[in-house]
């Protein structure tokens, strides 16, 4: 078993094995994403309170979910890299960070676009917005540390440890920000009575969430492949690959 993991997780093996995976993930993300968007933008009923502008949730909510999910993946694979010294796990962690940061950024931008017609302002110091912003900062800190350390292996370990510390902190930050907001000002704009979501809205939302996950899987594999090529640029298997071109 252990031997098998070692062999499978070698960058060379990964480089060839990931090709069909990327293909299928991309096709899946495209098909499910297009169908989800069609259902969300054309089929789902108009919201009786928010009108048409609620439809941004089909991008906004999956992006916000993904920003947290990618952080968990990043920290978990960084932990695997630190504990079992599997280089592929380090590559996946390093490849995930910019994607997760982009998801967090996308969630913030779509949220503020939605906030303008709904709340009358692009930015409100709402608990969820604030913790999403802090999550973005955590990603940026991880990336800064990763690029500041010259030696690749210790850069991976150091930023991986930071990601794990971040995971311990995320729930604390989340709940303290939530409490901060409710203590400061009673929730007035942000907490209108939300009807439980209609099933015609829920299905496209879930489809989009699946599409975003597949999209992330495809992108992280592509980025990890590049990472593998770059890090092993002086090894034989990469040299042989280049000679074949």
């Amino acid at each position, binding site marked *: 078993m252990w031997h098998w993991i070692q062999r499978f997780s070698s960058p060379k093996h990964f480089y060839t094995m990931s090709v069909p995976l990327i293909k299928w993930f991309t096709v899946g993300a495209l098909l499910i994403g297009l169908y989800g968007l069609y259902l969300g933008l054309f089929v789902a009923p108009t919201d009786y309170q928010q009108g048409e502008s609620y439809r941004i949730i089909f991008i906004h909510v999956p992006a916000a979910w993904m920003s947290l999910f990618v952080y968990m993946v990043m920290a978990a694979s960084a932990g695997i890299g*630190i504990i079992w010294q599997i280089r592929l796990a380090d590559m996946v962690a390093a490849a995930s960070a910019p994607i997760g940061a982009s998801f967090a950024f996308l969630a913030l931008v779509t949220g503020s676009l939605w906030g303008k017609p709904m709340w009358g302002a692009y930015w409100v110091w709402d608990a969820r917005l604030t913790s999403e912003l*802090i999550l973005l*900062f*955590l990603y*940026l*800190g*991880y990336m*800064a*540390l990763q690029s*500041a*350390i010259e*030696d690749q292996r*210790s850069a991976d*370990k*150091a930023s991986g*440890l*930071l990601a*794990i*510390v*971040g995971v*311990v*902190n995320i729930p*604390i*930050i989340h709940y*303290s*920000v939530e*409490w*901060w907001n409710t*203590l400061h000002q009673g929730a007035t704009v942000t907490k209108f009575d939300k009807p439980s979501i209609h099933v015609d809205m829920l299905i496209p939302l879930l489809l989009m969430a699946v599409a975003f996950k597949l999209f992330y899987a495809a992108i992280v594999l592509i980025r990890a492949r590049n990472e593998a090529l770059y890090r092993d640029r002086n090894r034989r298997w990469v040299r042989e690959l280049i000679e074949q071109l």
Partner: protein
Amino acid sequence: MLKAYYYLLFRDLRLALRNRHELANPLIFFVLVVTLFPLAVTPTPETLQTMAPGVIWVSALLAVLLSLDRLFKQDYEDGSLDQLMLSPNPLVILVLAKVTAHWLLTGLPLVIIAPLLGLFMSLPMEAVIVLIYSLLLGTPVLSLIGAIGVSLTVAVNRGGVLLSLIILPLYIPILIFGANAVDVAMAGLPVSGQLLFLGAVLALSVSLAPLATSVALRITASR
């Protein structure tokens, strides 16, 4: 084990006391930053009072952040950090000793000078008392979490900005509850919730942060 703890603690204290002018720097910085706010915003007591908890807490946070360098930098440069890691004593205990020394040298002075700043910002007496309590519970956490960041960046050239980038997001809960406790105290409401939360975070970070710091130090040393 306990002997090693006390030995390292007193060594760090003695080293710092022989370098007294450096010791006062974070304290002067703390007072100076707080002084900037009445000048920049407005000196009217009512406005000062409303910003006081936040201003004092942010300044304390920055003062601790700037002093974190002292925690491992010198030991890293002269090689004694490597010797500490080679010693048979558990690194967690040694880290805890160094963090304790750091807090006694920077956090505690901030707590002691805080009443003066409360006076500057025309805080009422009961708020000043809560400010002292909140700083007393909060500043050790700042040192403990900061130790993780310093041990990761100590070998990086010009790691100062990087350190604040990775550490400040982790400081946010402390800032929220510390400043909020003082805020609530000014309104005459009970503050035990906020102080208990700070205590809980302190207990959590005393038990976990030295572990993370010692792993980080080994990563830094293996370079």
